[in-house]
């Protein structure tokens, strides 16, 4: 395998006597979309901040495109684009000015700036708003400004911390579609955190679940879902219901519970495929026609809950620098 785009090695971050990240290791291949999931306070932002050179790790390290985050910070900065969790676009400046300032900060040659900015604004569909001050734009549009801003120096690796939190479903889809489109035309590796499991499921090549500062699961969405004990829900509608039908259903293999009304039943199963097969056979033997059958498979939500549990993560911590009254935390 080629040099990983991101290679995290036993990275640790302590704030005082509180350990936010407790020795995480993983690597991301070039071109991958890598999702980082975890409950609030799991340490996702802290991890991203270390990888993007914003804070120094307490122990361990990470290589970004082969550069050490602690020792070669400036080389790292040149190859990464970053969208922080907070909205950080400059509200007073126009869309284009926001990008221009960053192009200058990244030392993008003058000759390339205009075309680059034009192309980026086109791909995030903000060309017609280029002269508007960012404060007049909606949350979704601001996020797109930031995405374009983060790409203005053509980075190889793109870090996005909850880019879709707080956006409506349409804007959310738009952001992801744009990201995919941009990724298709560039050689880009993406590390993204989100609280939306459906997004992560559809878009990420691999997913890491972080909880309490440790990595609790890491695999492709499909395999993650397969890895947890099945909890499928079958919705079956029968042509007619013979005497004692519900009890029959309940006795089928792997069935956990049955609820039903009239001739439509919801069946909870530990193993969807096995139960489905049994229903088909039983129905055929009883001369009952199945009008419809739907199997809802395990979702990433189930995976998430399986690995992180249901407990709320409320705990008191000392005030952190990031928690100022003006911070737009989302």
């Amino acid at each position: 395998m080629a040099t990983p785009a991101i290679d995290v090695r036993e990275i640790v971050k302590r704030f005082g006597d509180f350990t936010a990240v407790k020795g995480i290791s993983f690597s991301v291949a070039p071109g991958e979309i890598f999702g980082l999931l975890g409950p609030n306070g799991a340490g996702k932002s802290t991890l991203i901040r270390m990888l993007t050179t914003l804070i120094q790790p307490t122990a361990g390290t990470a290589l970004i495109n082969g550069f050490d985050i602690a020792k070669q910070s400036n080389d790292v900065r040149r190859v990464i684009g970053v969208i922080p969790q907070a909205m950080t676009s400059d509200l007073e400046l126009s869309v284009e000015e926001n990008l221009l300032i960053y192009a200058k900060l990244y030392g993008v040659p003058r000759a390339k700036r205009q075309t680059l900015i034009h192309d980026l604004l086109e791909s995030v569909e903000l060309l017609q708003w280029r002269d508007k001050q960012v404060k007049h734009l909606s949350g979704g549009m601001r996020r797109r400004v930031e995405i374009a801003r983060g790409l203005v120096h053509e980075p190889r690796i793109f870090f996005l911390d909850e880019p879709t939190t707080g956006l409506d479903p349409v804007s959310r889809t738009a952001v992801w579609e744009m990201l995919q489109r941009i990724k298709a035309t560039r050689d880009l590796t993406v590390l993204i955190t989100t609280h939306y499991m459906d997004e992560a499921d559809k878009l990420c090549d691999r997913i890491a679940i972080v909880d309490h500062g440790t990595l609790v699961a890491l695999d492709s969405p499909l395999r993650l879902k397969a890895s947890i004990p099945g909890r499928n829900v079958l919705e079956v509608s029968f042509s007619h219901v013979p005497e004692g039908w519900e009890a029959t259903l309940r006795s089928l293999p792997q069935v956990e519970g049955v609820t039903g009304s009239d001739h439509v039943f919801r069946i909870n199963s530990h193993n969807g495929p096995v139960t489905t097969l049994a229903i088909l056979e039983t129905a055929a033997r009883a001369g009952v026609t199945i009008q419809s059958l739907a199997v809802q498979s395990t979702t990433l939500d189930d995976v998430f809950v399986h690995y992180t549990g249901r407990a709320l993560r409320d705990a008191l911590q000392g005030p952190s620098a990031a928690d100022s009254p003006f911070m737009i935390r989302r």
Partner: protein
Amino acid sequence: MARTWAIIERELRRFRRSPILIVVSMIFPLVQLVVLGYAFGGTVKHLTIAVVDQDHGLQATRIRELAGAVAAGPQTYDLVNYADQGAALTDLRNGRVNGVLTIPPGFSRRVLTQNEPKVALIADNTDSFVSATLTGTMGSLLAAFNEPATPVRVPGKAALDVVEVYPYVPYIQYLLPGSITMSIFMMVMIGGGIIFIDDKARGLHEGYLVTPITKLELVAGFNISGTIKAVLAGVVIMVIGSLVAGIPNPLDPMRMARLFLVIVVTAFALISMMFLLMVRVTDPLMPRAMFGVLNTLLYFPSGAVYPQQGFPQWMQWIAAIDPFTYAVHAFKSLLLKNTGMEAIASDMLYLVAFSVVALTAATALFKRTL
């Protein structure tokens, strides 16, 4: 350096988009100049003095005539006659009169027999300005009483001849140097303090920190842009203030050039100081809370409103390190005396040294990471 310019460009573009901020930060020093200038600049007039004449003799009448002349002339006070000392004192306590002048019984006789004649002035000393004015006027009144007609000067008696080197300086002009310094400080406070911390809190600096900008480039960007903004404020108030206060020949180009230099050096010194104070602050309430304290601590000891010679020792120490002191002194030299560079060289030297120290310390404290 290109990155420094990017920061400066951003700051100035943003500055241009906030006209309200600009106007507000300039109005404050102007209002202060005009209001303080007229509030403190005038001479005290129309105080009320109760006269209690218990003597009724010829000499008492002379005293009352002399007092009446002041009341009619400079109008420092108006006279009200009281028959009863007790009633006069009650009114003094109630604030109806500002002082009570009592001419005791037997005053005229004592004058004639040269037996230590005395009149009493009971003044309301809760207002030291008023009582000082009354004591002063009464003092000269008695001097006139003692030396009737044109006094023959004894050749051996020394007299003080005051020679005024510069034309009369109204108080508003005396205040102008402080107001210019204040306008620079206001912009430093708002631009370099409040907005700086707000940007930091909103995560804007986090955006800068993930770019390959160096610590020095960032520090330079923040300080140069802050200086430019503060210089703009200083220049505007310098011009408007000179016209408002009636500085003679306000647009003299040579003096303007020197004033500009002082404004630049002062702006840089104050922004360095602010940067040092704010370099580790993250709470947006902090600069707002500090504003009043800083303002008082820098402005009043600087000699902008009252001469430093009147300060207690501890305040003179504050004044000695206060950059305002040197800025105000330099502006005073140029605006009120139209001096050349020699008179302000040591002020400039102090301010430059102050900037170097503050900025070095701030840069050392500045964190390139969050």
